[in-house]
């Protein structure tokens, strides 16, 4: 059973456009949602995260929008750059829980 779903599987945008990566979850006990960025040959790196008490989290060009009622969130990357080309993982966890559930990832390609 896949508890965290991501779409699309892959996404191509032009440099300067806004990339939108989607994520949904099933377990209502999840209350913390980190996004990880992974470049080829490297391990994932924590990019930005949001807690369920918030509906928006911004960090530079990266913004998470969170809809608790629909159990959905999205990562918006504005002014996309070729250097943003990577695989992005949405993850979910609950407070105090050891386990983190990762989505299957979205491969983003930013074309110059």
């Amino acid at each position, binding site marked *: 059973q896949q508890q965290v779903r991501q779409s699309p599987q892959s996404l191509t945008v032009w440099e300067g456009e806004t990339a939108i990566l989607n994520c949904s979850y099933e377990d209502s006990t999840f209350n913390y949602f980190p996004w*990880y960025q992974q470049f080829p040959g490297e391990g994932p790196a924590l990019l930005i995260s949001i807690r369920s008490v918030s509906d928006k989290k911004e960090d530079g060009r990266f913004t998470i929008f969170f809809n608790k009622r629909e159990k959905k969130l999205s990562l918006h990357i504005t002014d996309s750059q070729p250097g943003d080309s990577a*695989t992005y993982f949405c993850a979910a966890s609950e407070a105090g829980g050891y386990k983190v559930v990762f989505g299957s*990832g979205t491969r983003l390609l930013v074309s110059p």
Partner: protein
Amino acid sequence: ETAVFQTPNYHVTQVGNEVSFNCKQTLGHDTMYWYKQDSKKLLKIMFSYNNKQLIVNETVPRRFSPQSSDKAHLNLRIKSVEPEDSAVYLCASSPLGYYAEQFFGPGTRLTVL
């Protein structure tokens, strides 16, 4: 330098051999993890240790065994590797209580011939 270090970077071996991968973190974290990442980039948690004690042991074949000497080290041994074990093995660590804020190593790519 504070980070998560893994050795080796790559390992190629034959079916039935035994392999060991090492992981060390210098971040002062209490919790460490092993993940398996397949060719489709899917991340699967295998084991989680908190201060040298096993806290999560997902359903993995018994030929996989983690080993922790202290909270900064978590190794992975695979007895009698099989072709489906070919993958990237990622080690990660997190601060106590912040289990979702994980710091990953660069991974060890295993190829089983």
